[in-house]
């Protein structure tokens, strides 16, 4: 019980800490932050349920008014901005990522996790993000999809990194991989 | 039945025996534990505090099994970890100290008052709102000590509690410990810190190799450490 709770709190903190890393700018001037990688890692390492709880805990802290989102943003505004759909999709993204890592046990871990992160952390997260954006900006889903495509390459890099990091962690701390225990 | 009672304790970690056949009944007010790195001191401290149930044997305090009865343990035994960063749970000093008191059933406001009183006792009242992560290593150690002492446990287990403390703080703390009724079990590498203690346990390779009053154990311990330290054969140092 205590152990689960500290790990959930730890991953919520990891998502916060990753938001403090200065964002990288890709070739086309698209900023990518490490924060959504934290969401993928939470799902991949903690598994579906605990991963989603870690993300929810992080979101609660943002709602309480802490500037934990990349760029020092936070507060209730994070839930009504044009990009809030992505944010609201985070717990589902972590859950789906975790679920896939839990269920898909054949094949190399790095590949499975990268794949899970692409499905959970990109497909699912973008579905939420695009719906939210289309509501906020009053545009069609297709138009919004077009708007966000520039961010997909950056997120694919993050999914691959999530796979590599999870594999390295599984080697150095096999017991830490709750999604496979 | 009073005191810490260890009966034939055995602990195995990752398939390796870390403690074997450790037996002792500790009734003295001040007990020191010495031994080389990796000899099992921290593990024994965890067993005494009930954080690890031994794989063999029995550990009890005042007749109760601390690993099984965590609620009794809360009032009976406090432990101060070797690394304060492993112990601090809360973002501010006041919360960290008050937490254990609310755990013991005190109302939040009473707990906070008691926490402030503890800080004042060490002249650190101004620390109350400070962020725990902004404290220095030694200050963190003092915070951990205050947090555990505020709970007034019957037995205080301390794992190298003074390694980062400056001399005035250490002396102040020793005086404080002298003034309370709690039984102290202290792990240290410095025999000088065990002056005035009543009994010393010496662990080596997970076994108790000496147990007795300081006059009998410490000179032998120091001589042995010097002898090993004088050797250039590092193979011996591989714990």
């Amino acid at each position: 019980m205590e152990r689960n709770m500290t790990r959930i709190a730890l991953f919520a903190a990891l998502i916060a800490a990753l938001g403090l890393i200065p964002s990288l700018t890709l070739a086309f001037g698209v900023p990518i932050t490490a924060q959504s990688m934290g969401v993928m890692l939470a799902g991949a390492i903690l598994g579906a349920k605990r991963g989603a709880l870690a993300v929810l805990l992080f979101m609660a802290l943002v709602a309480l008014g802490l500037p934990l989102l990349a760029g020092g943003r936070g507060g209730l505004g994070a839930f009504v901005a044009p990009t809030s759909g992505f944010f609201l999709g985070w717990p589902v993204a972590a859950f789906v990522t975790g679920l896939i890592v839990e269920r898909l046990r054949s094949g190399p871990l790095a590949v499975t996790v990268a794949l899970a992160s692409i499905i959970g952390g990109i497909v699912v997260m973008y579905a939420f993000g695009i719906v939210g954006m289309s509501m906020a900006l009053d545009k069609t889903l297709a138009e919004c999809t077009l708007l966000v495509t520039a961010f997909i390459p950056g997120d694919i890099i993050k999914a691959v990194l999530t796979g590599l990091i999870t594999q390295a962690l599984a080697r150095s701390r096999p017991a830490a991989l709750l999604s496979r225990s | 039945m009073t005191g810490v009672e260890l009966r034939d304790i055995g602990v195995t970690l990752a398939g390796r025996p870390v403690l074997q056949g450790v037996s002792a009944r500790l009734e003295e007010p001040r007990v020191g534990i010495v031994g080389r790195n990796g000899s099992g001191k921290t593990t024994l401290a965890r067993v005494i505090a009930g954080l690890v149930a031994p794989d063999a044997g029995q550990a009890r305090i005042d007749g109760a099994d601390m690993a099984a009865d965590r609620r009794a343990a809360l009032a009976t035994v406090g432990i101060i970890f070797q690394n304060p960063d492993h112990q601090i749970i809360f973002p501010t000093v006041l919360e960290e100290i008050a937490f254990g008191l609310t755990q013991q059933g005190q109302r939040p406001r009473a707990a906070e008052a008691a926490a402030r009183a503890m800080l004042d006792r060490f002249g650190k009242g101004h620390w109350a709102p400070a962020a725990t992560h902004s404290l220095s290593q030694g200050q963190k150690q003092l915070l951990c000590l205050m947090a555990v002492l505020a709970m007034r446990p019957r037995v205080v287990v301390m794992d190298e509690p003074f390694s980062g403390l400056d001399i005035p703080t250490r002396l102040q703390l020793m005086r404080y410990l002298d003034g309370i009724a709690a039984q102290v079990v202290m792990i240290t590498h410095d025999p000088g810190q065990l002056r005035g203690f009543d009994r010393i346990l010496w662990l080596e390779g997970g076994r108790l190799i000496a147990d007795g009053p300081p006059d009998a154990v410490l000179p032998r311990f120091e001589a042995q450490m010097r002898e090993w330290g004088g050797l250039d054969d590092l193979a011996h140092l591989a714990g």
Partner: protein
Amino acid sequence: MISLISPVETWAHRIPAGAKLLALSALTVALFLTDRPAVLAAATLAVIALYLSAGTAFLRQGARHLRMLWPFLLLIALWHGLTGQAQAGIVIALRLLAALALANFVTMTTRLTDMIAVLTWVLSPLRRLGLPTRAVTLAIAMVLRFTPMLVENGQRLALSWRARSPRRPGWRIVVPMAALALDDADHVAEALRARGGILNDIPDGRN
């Protein structure tokens, strides 16, 4: 960790957090239900007046929190300028501005402890279902404790890397950082157990 609360103490700081949050939810829903430019313009003006009532310094501070909207406002202006639906563009822009500014206003005028009190109150029915609500407040405190610790560990590891390598650590630093963090989390779990663990029958933050 500093909250986004404004250091400028305003009248709104003294209004109960629950009331502010309730009003915020109702008003945000209302903003998304209307399409009339006049209503939305009036709402935006009202929000600006709300900020102004707390002083110009507060207004400036609030404006800074809206910076993230600029790319979207620009996008809307371009899009609707090109398609010639200016009115629809204005509706969307005003709604975005008003909704975000209103939410930020509540955040800027509500203390963290008051927010946590509302959260525990909202969660309290769950306690009857056996959910340990005290664990939630404990977990929140732990995140605040862990975040600077993680950042520090990361910096320490990066230093230790640079002391022994001419190249920058990059993402590789995340692996030892996460491993260290997991160990620390387990130690803190033990520390929590040493002080009684998660006991559900202990009164929580409210007296």
